[in-house]
Structure formats: C-alpha cells, structure tokens
C-alpha cells in the first residue's frame, strides 16, 4: 500500500528531528470561509516560539471550484525541472489531471532556497490490480511513491479542497511568499511556527504534515518515536520525513481514517490516562481504557506534545497526558481558536468570549455545525 524505503540496515534509518514550536488554529464552525489575517497575526504574535526555520499553513475549504479533486501541492527542490517532468509523466499515467499551475509566489520575499511549487487537481486513474483500491488509499500510495522515489520532488499536501503552504522561514514570511492573505480563504486555518532542535530546516520538514486532507501541526518531542515508528511500519506507514510529527500524522490516519475510531477515543490512545487514574474509573470505563492501553500501547505518544490535527469539518487540539506543552482554546460566536499562547488569541480577537485550557490528554474537538468543542470547556480551567 504505502511505499517502503529500504535502508542498508536499521542503523542507517535517519534519526527523527525534534522540534518545538508555536501553534495556532482557527475554525468557523458555521463553515464560513475567511482570510488568513487572524492566523498570520496570531502566529506573528508568538514569533519567539519559532526560529525562522519553518512555517506553514493548512487551509480547509480552499478550492471550492475543484472541491471534488485531489489537490496535490508539489514542490521541486532546487527548482529541478527534470524532476517535474518525471512527476508529471507519473501523474498523467495514474491520474486525470484536470488543472495545474504554478502556485503563485511573491518574488519580493526572499527565502532560503525556495523550490518550485506547483499544484495539480487530479482524480485517480486506476488500472489493473489497483482497480479495487479505494481512492484514498490509491492516492496515498502514489504520494508515498513520489515522496520516496523521486529525487527533489515532494508532495506537500494531497487532500480535496484543502492545501498546505509551508517552507523555511517564519510563518508570516511564508504567508507573504505564497500571498495567502490576498489569494485564499478557508473555514479552517492551522498554522505552525517551527523551532527545530536540530536542524537543517528544509521545506518538506516544515509543518503542517499531511496525508490526504489530514494535517498535523505539532509542538514538542515524541520520546516514544522509535516504538511508534516500528508499530506504524508494521501497518505499512514508512517514515520518510525524519520528524517525529510524522508518526502522529500516520497514527491519526491509521486510527481515524482506516480504523474509523472517533477522535475522542483516538485521543485516549495517543494520550491515555494513567493506570492510577484507570483504577478509579467505573467498571465500564476501566474495561475500555484497559483494552485501549493494552491494544494500542505502541501508539502511546510519550513525551511532551501538543498537536492540532485537522481534516474536513474538524479541527482537534490535543496535548500529551500530563500536558507538558501548552494549549489554550478560545471561542467567539462561531469562531473557535486553538493556540500555544492565550495572548495570541486575544491579539487577533479582542472581544473573545471564552478562553480555556483543556487538561492533558483531553481533546478539544471543533466540528462544523456543532458546539462539541464546549465539551472540553467543562473539564478545563
């Protein structure tokens, strides 16, 4: 299904990179699309959380005109046109490409080694043994192939009606570079400002990370990375991005998309309650949580993290079970915010109505046309 990259030996599997960061997400639960001003200003307010080595945005409700097609954002590093040729040949063979264009950029913004960025709106063109493969799986496998096999080409995002814009720089520079504020609207904006512990900062390593329309922005380090990775490899997810966030994205994909578990449960897999807490639960819960921990032990994300996971209709904020990384939620009318720092929300929404910090492991689930996010308010302070 997914493409395995073979290494000479385990010894040469690259280490993950660790990073810490600033996160922000905003969603209109009424589905109303809006521009990027709030997201950009908020992340700018938290500039000190990043280091200018990565910034990126995920936007949902991005391409209403092409909303039925997979939107592939592909970058060609070093503006490698040969790679572009190979990719386009591949795309033509496996997809119907209904439209493609260079993603417009502002030439006045100087960034580190900007690649050529191109977008393709495609529909699967299946053949042979792949006829019966569901569309999503088909797209993923092709994306994985491109990412791992074609030098200098990298798929930023591949979801429908959604897209990821990211690169090396501060997020506001990325926004300016891709002219997000002028050109795009969406009903969910998530944004990430990266502070890699190690790193070279390359465009593909910036957040959000995505599979299909699933995107993840992450702050923290997943100390259990090695254990998580091996489990996901067993399920044919191969980590090629060398960032710990990748395992989170795959875990979410595995549990939510492929296994169909609701986010509320997934949250308890990634950030399970302590055994000590389980001991004091009702019998029903005790049984449930014990089973979850036993079954999904390898997906316990240990170490500090906060993530904002988004896909169509949904934006989820989650921290590790002892909340070693911060998150604050806020709401005003139908707008719901998630942020690393509360001040950033206030800065972009002066008349905020609610602000709360959910406890560790307790997801804030923001869904279209619901008030589900308020459930976490009750457990929060």
């Amino acid at each position, binding site marked *: 299904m997914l493409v395995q990259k073979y290494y000479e030996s385990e010894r040469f599997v690259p280490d993950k990179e660790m990073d810490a960061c600033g996160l922000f997400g905003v969603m209109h639960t009424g589905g109303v699309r809006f521009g990027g001003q709030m997201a950009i200003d908020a992340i700018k307010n938290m500039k000190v959380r990043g280091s*200018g080595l990565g910034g990126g945005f995920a936007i949902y409700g991005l391409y209403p005109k092409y909303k039925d097609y997979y939107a592939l954002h592909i970058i060609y590093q070093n503006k490698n046109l040969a790679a572009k040729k190979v990719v386009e040949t591949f795309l033509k063979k496996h997809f119907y490409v209904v439209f493609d264009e260079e993603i417009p950029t502002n030439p006045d913004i100087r960034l580190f080694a900007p690649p050529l960025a191109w977008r393709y709106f495609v529909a699967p063109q299946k053949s042979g043994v792949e006829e019966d493969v569901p569309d999503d799986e088909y797209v993923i496998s092709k994306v994985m192939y491109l990412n791992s096999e074609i030098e200098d080409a990298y798929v930023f995002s591949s979801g429908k009606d959604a897209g990821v814009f990211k690169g090396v720089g501060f997020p506001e520079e990325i926004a300016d570079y891709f002219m997000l504020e002028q050109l795009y609207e969406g009903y969910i904006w998530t944004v990430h400002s990266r502070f890699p512990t190690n790193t070279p900062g390359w465009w593909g390593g910036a957040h959000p990370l995505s599979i299909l329309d699933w995107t993840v922005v992450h702050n923290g380090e997943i100390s259990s990375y090695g254990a998580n990775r091996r489990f996901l490899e067993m399920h044919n997810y191969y980590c090629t991005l060398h960032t710990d966030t990748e395992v989170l994205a795959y875990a979410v994909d595995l549990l939510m998309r492929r296994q169909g578990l609701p986010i509320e449960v997934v949250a308890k897999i990634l950030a399970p309650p302590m055994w000590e807490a389980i001991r004091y639960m009702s019998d029903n819960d005790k049984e449930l949580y014990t089973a979850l921990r036993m079954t999904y032990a390898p997906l316990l994300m240990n170490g500090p993290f906060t993530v904002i996971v988004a896909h169509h209709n949904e934006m989820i904020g989650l921290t590790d079970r002892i909340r070693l990384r911060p998150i604050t939620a806020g709401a005003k009318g139908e707008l719901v915010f998630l942020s690393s720092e509360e001040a950033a929300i*206030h800065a972009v929404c002066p008349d905020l109505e609610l602000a709360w910090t959910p406890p560790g492991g307790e997801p804030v689930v923001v869904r279209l046309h619901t008030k589900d996010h308020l459930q976490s308010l009750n457990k929060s302070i």
Partner: protein
Amino acid sequence: MNGFNVKFGFRDNFLDNLQPVDFLYHTRVSTNGCCASINALGLKHKELNDLLRETVLQGSTELVINNVFGQRYIGTRLFLPPEANKLHIEVNKFPGNDLGAFLNGHQIIVHGNAQDGVGNTMNSGEIIVHGRAGDVTAMSMRGGKIFIRDNVGYRTAIHMKEYREKVPVLVVGGTAQDFLGEYMAGGIVLLLGLNLQQGEPHRANYIGTGMHGGVIYLRGCLAEHQLGKEVGVLPPDDRDKANIDRYVREYCNHFGGNPDQILNERFQKLVPVSLRPYGQIYAY
C-alpha cells in the same frame, strides 16, 4: 541533514530589528509625575522591557502598560539597587510567559489573563492577576505573594520553597490542574475553588507529589486518589486558620467577594508526610 548551510535561516527572534529605546521612550511613554503610561502594542518583549527599564531610570515608579499581548518577562529586568523604590506596575490585557520571573520586590497587577510561568523563581514582591494564569505558576517561588483571581494550570507552585523570613504565598480563587504543589518545599498555597459547584471536587490529580515542605490549604473537597503519596490531609489548626483568614481577606481586598462567606466553607490542610520523601530508596 542534507548538509545545508542554513545560516540563512538563523535569526535571533528575540533580538532582531529592535527599535532604539530612546525612540520608543519618546513615542510610547507619557508621564505624569512619577506615573508613566506605556503603549506596548506590537512591541517585542525586549523592546518593551528596554522601555520599562528606561522609564524607571527616568524616575517613574508607577507604570501602566497598555495593550500588552504576549510580551514576556515583564518585571524581570527591573533589578534595581536595594535602596531604590519598589515599583507599582499595572498591566492591561494579556502579558506573556514568565511574568515577573525572578521578581524582586515590585508589585505587578494584571487586568487580564496571564500565561505560563507567572512568578517563576520570584524572590519578593506581589503579582495580582485579575483573571487566570497558565501552567507552572509560582514555580520555584521563594518569596512574595501571588494572587490569581480565577484558575491556574498544571504544576502550579511546583518546587515552591521558603527561606527564613521569606514564605511565598500563592492564593488562587478557582481551582488548579494536575501536579499542584509538586516537589513543594515550602510556602503557602491557598486554593479557594470559588468556581466549583457545591460538592464538586477540585480538578487536580497528583497533588503534592514529592512534596517535602510548605502547606496547601484547600477549600472544598477532593478524593483521596487525587493526592500524591507524599501528602497527608489534616484539619487546619488555629495558626492555619489565622493564615487562611488573612489571605482570604487579602484576596477579597484585591478582587471583591465576601470573605466571611468564603471562610465559612470547609478548609483542608495538605502537608508532606515526610521531609525526606526519597530518603529510603537508595542502597548505601
């Protein structure tokens, strides 16, 4: 990875492109006697703190800072000679992390919520937050007082300590999240739980894990399993009651409310069961 030389991407986001302090002083500060009012809108934290220091050096002792959104370390740089006046600082809106870190004697009043790290390693002074505060409030605090009107986040009063006449006090009007008083080695934490329903237990788990000094007074109830195993529960004695009484009244002075009504509820006292919680785990 990739062997990139990414010097290009290296910028010191704390220090890049700062506006000169003289310029800021002339454009952002208006003074009236010893009072100064500062517009912090859009300032980087270092700019704001440069400006605060400058304003104080120019003789202001009463500072009002407006339009604060996330600027860090307010109060930290104000290390003045011992004979200098203590400052009174009002912060409007939302200060950033490490508000009053290492604070030495000044008073900071926040009209808005505060973020993480309020009073980090604070030595003396007073911080009053008309709102709530984030995680690790009063971490390693050694002296002075912090009053938070509403709730506080995780690891509140972690490793709070005391030293001779310095006994730090943290009063929280609402409740706290997990690991309240972790490693606590001294000082007083008073958790009023004013926002809890009747009979609703406090929210925090692992209260006082590793606690080996100080005392937590808790108004309202909690379940046994919410406590760390290093903590014991006692009814408050007369001295405790005097403490509680004093700080509840101070709390009400700052934020309003009826002290007698608050004092009417049941208080519990949490203290470490041992001053040497980890004395026995080693083989000598």
